[in-house]
Structure formats: structure tokens, C-alpha cells
């Protein structure tokens, strides 16, 4: 009965550019970044000054947790690290953190880069959905 957002083909299609290439927007008036992209600038309340912006695939690690009880559909990958990353432009995103072989080496504020991965797939017959995940840079 549960509708899983991530199974919705049209929704996933709508999000492709954001997930694949970190496409958001930048408001030339208030000099603010938006990710995911906004139809209207939240501050200026207009689309007039918005231009498409591709965020850099680098940032710093803020909080992280190791999820032992995985979200449905992620059980095969569990346990996995889940974190908040602040991109260079100051926008924050949540994502999985890969290749944590020694948690002791994770530090608040350390550099991470974003890589391209499969976010989820739906059995043998469903679609795969792709997007970004983070990797620590030691």
C-alpha cells in the first residue's frame, strides 16, 4: 500500500539534472544559490534573476551517522554511512558517504568529493536511479 516516492518514474525523471549533475540555480539579484532548483527565488519571489547553476562536486563533511537498520530497499547496502555535506557554494545536501574504512579518520569539516552512483533500483525489472554520493578525501 505504501507509495514509495523513489519508484515514481516521472518524479525521478524530473530530478535527473539535479541528481546527475547537481543542477540548481543562482539568483543574480540576491546572489543566493538554490539546490534543488527553485521556480521562483525564495527571497526575491521572482524567476526574473534566476539562472541555471551547476554546483561543484566538492564540499565538506558536516554530521554523519552509520545507519545499521537500513531504509527499505537499501538493506543490501547496510550498514551504510549517511551524512550532510556542505558544498563549496554553501548549499547543504544529504547523501550517503562511501568508503569509510576507519571512522576515526572522519572529521567534522573534512573535504569530500561527490561521485556518481546508483541511488536505488527496483528489483530485476524496475528502473535504476542514479545520482551523487560522497567520498571522503583524506
Amino acid at each position, binding site marked *: 500500500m505504501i507509495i514509495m516516492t523513489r519508484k515514481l518514474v516521472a518524479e525521478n525523471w524530473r530530478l*535527473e*539534472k539535479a541528481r*546527475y*549533475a547537481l*543542477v540548481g540555480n543562482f539568483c543574480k539579484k540576491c546572489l543566493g544559490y538554490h539546490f534543488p532548483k527553485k521556480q521562483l527565488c525564495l527571497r526575491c519571489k521572482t524567476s526574473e534573476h534566476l539562472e541555471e547553476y*551547476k554546483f561543484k562536486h566538492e564540499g565538506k563533511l558536516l554530521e554523519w551517522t552509520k545507519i545499521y537498520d537500513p531504509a527499505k530497499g537499501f*538493506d*543490501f*547496502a547496510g550498514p551504510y554511512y549517511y551524512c550532510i555535506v556542505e558544498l563549496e557554494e554553501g548549499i547543504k545536501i544529504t547523501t550517503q558517504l*562511501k*568508503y569509510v*574504512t576507519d571512522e576515526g579518520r572522519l572529521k567534522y569539516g573534512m573535504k569530500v568529493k561527490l*561521485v*556518481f*552512483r*546508483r*541511488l536505488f533500483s527496483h*528489483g530485476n525489472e524496475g*528502473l*535504476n536511479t*542514479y545520482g551523487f*554520493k560522497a567520498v571522503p578525501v583524506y
Partner: protein
Amino acid sequence: MSSKEIKDIGIVGYGVYIPKYRISVDEIAKMWHDNGPMMAKTLNVTEKSVPDLDEDTITISVMAARNALARADRGDNTKNNELLSKLGAIYVGSESHPYAVKPSAVTVGEAIGATPVMTAADIEFACKAGTAGLQNVIGLVKSQEIEYGLAIGTDCAQGRPGDQLEYTAGAGGAAFIMGTENIIAKLEGMYSFTTDTPDFWRREHARYPSHAGRFTGQPSYFRHTLSATKGLLEKLDLSIDDFDRVSFHQPNGRFPIAAAKRLSIPYEKLEDSLCVTKIGNTYSAASMVGFARQLDMAEPGERILICSYGSGAGSDAFSFVVTEEIISRRNLAPVTDDYIEDKAMLSYAHYAKHRGKIMMS
């Protein structure tokens, strides 16, 4: 499209990607009570690369393509969009596309931002699908239909558990952007040799490929590789001694060495391309990754031969001459060894999980 005369066609950007995980031949041999050291020696392979749980040929293609782009834009991000707007074709060659129907190439195009004014297709020709794509791109650039084109060879190869192929079936990808300006390596010519030789195949819905054992050698790999190489030499009126470096398809660590020997190519000219010993056979990527590693190490002016082999069967041979551009461009993205050396070992159990050999339902 202007119809100015094209002087040179060549590589304007190249990039590889190899997953971080490895399993040793020894570990696989233990599983099947086989003799690990003997197997490693026979195959001349010690470890093979294994994709992560969330990696497939699409993710590998995107990572390799991003590295190729980083070299193509010459370190100038502002050039990126201009280049992408002129990137008119993407071909992804693989025998392990995640979908039977739905192109991998479109995801690559969307992820690097080359869509929508471009053509794209996935190509399958066993282990030479990547170079077949390269030929398509070269043709389009040469005919001035497009300014830049991207060809990728990639695989997450599957070997049947316990089969000889399981020891070598690896994962990786290599991407090449072809164009006419700021060339890293100039194309001199290409030559293909193709027959219907069924040495290795996988039927629709079959989980693992089948192969014809020793038949994969002489009538298959060697005949096609040697014929294509010789044909290219003849076509370009070159001798094998004119080449400074070579990269052959690498189904194991012995075949390319034997092929080089039969062509009287000194081992030193082949050596730098032999990634197979550490990452296994990356199938459609194998000869291209070997070629990329040769580019990582090449000096300007050096001539490089690349000859792929795809079961079924065919070989595509190419001759490239490296330009001065290589010096400033090769460090704009990770080199092949950065990936080969950055590794984490897996047990057979974890390997089985990574390769989908554990059924959850």
C-alpha cells in the same frame, strides 16, 4: 557546420575509472579448492577489480567521461559548457549494460551535460564494443557531422562461479573524446578484421557468458589481433618498430604477451599497458584502459598502437601519435595508476554479494 578542411583528428580528452574493490585470484581459488598461486601464474593475474554495490557500467562510464572532460577542457571550467554544446555523439560499448532496453549512453549524456542536441547509442561487440564506438565517433568527426564525440568502453564482467573466467572478469571503463583541436594524440589510421568465430557468447536472459575453452585462443584472439595489427601496418606503411608503445586486448596476462611476441614487439613496449595483472579483464574497457595507461606515460612524439579484440569475433587496430599537449593535460584528472593503486580487498563472500550472486528474493 563549416566545411573547412580538417587537418588532424585525435584524442582531445581521455579518462579512466576503475572501481576500488579487488578480489585476489588466491581468494577465488580457495573457494573452489583450486591452486591459487598456480592459477595466478597461469593467468598472469593476481587480482581483479570488483564494482561496488552501487556501481554498474553506467556509473563507471560517467566517472570515466568526467575525467575525459576534465582533460578536454584543458583545466578551464569555462570551456566546459562550450565543449559540451559541441559534443555531438556518445557511444557506450559494453557487454554488461544494466538494461537490455534503455541506453546507457543517455544517462552519460545527461550526467555530463551534453544533452539534448547529440546522438547516442549503446554498442555491443563482446570486448571490442568500446573501440567500435570509437570508430563511429571518428567517422562522425571526420565527416564534420559533429565537432566532438565521446566513446566509452566499459564493463562489469560476470564470470560463472567456478569457471576459469571468474578469476579474471573485472570491472572498469575508459572514455575518449575525439575532436580536431588541441589534440593529445593524433589518429593516423585504423583497420579492422572481422569474422564469424563463435568463441564466447551470452544468450538473452543468460546470467553468465559461455565460452569455447581453448578455441578462444588461436582461431579467435590471436588470429584477429595479429591480422588487424598487420593490416594496419600495411595500410599505414609502417613497421612494428615504428611503434613505441602498444596496447592489446587483455583477457588474461598471457595472451597479450604472446601476441606481442609473435609480432616481434619487445615486452617493454607492451608492459605499461598490462593492467590486467592487477585489475583483471575489464572486457570492453581492457585495451582502452591499457591505451590510457600508455598515454599516462607517453612522451610527445611517441607512436602508440591499440588493438582490441571482441569475441564473435573481431579486432580494431588504431595508430596514434602523441602530441606536446599530453604534458599539460594528463594531470588534469586522475591517471590510471591512481585507480589501480587505490584499492580495498574483498572476501569471496563479499565479492558474491557485490556481484549479485546472493539472491534476496
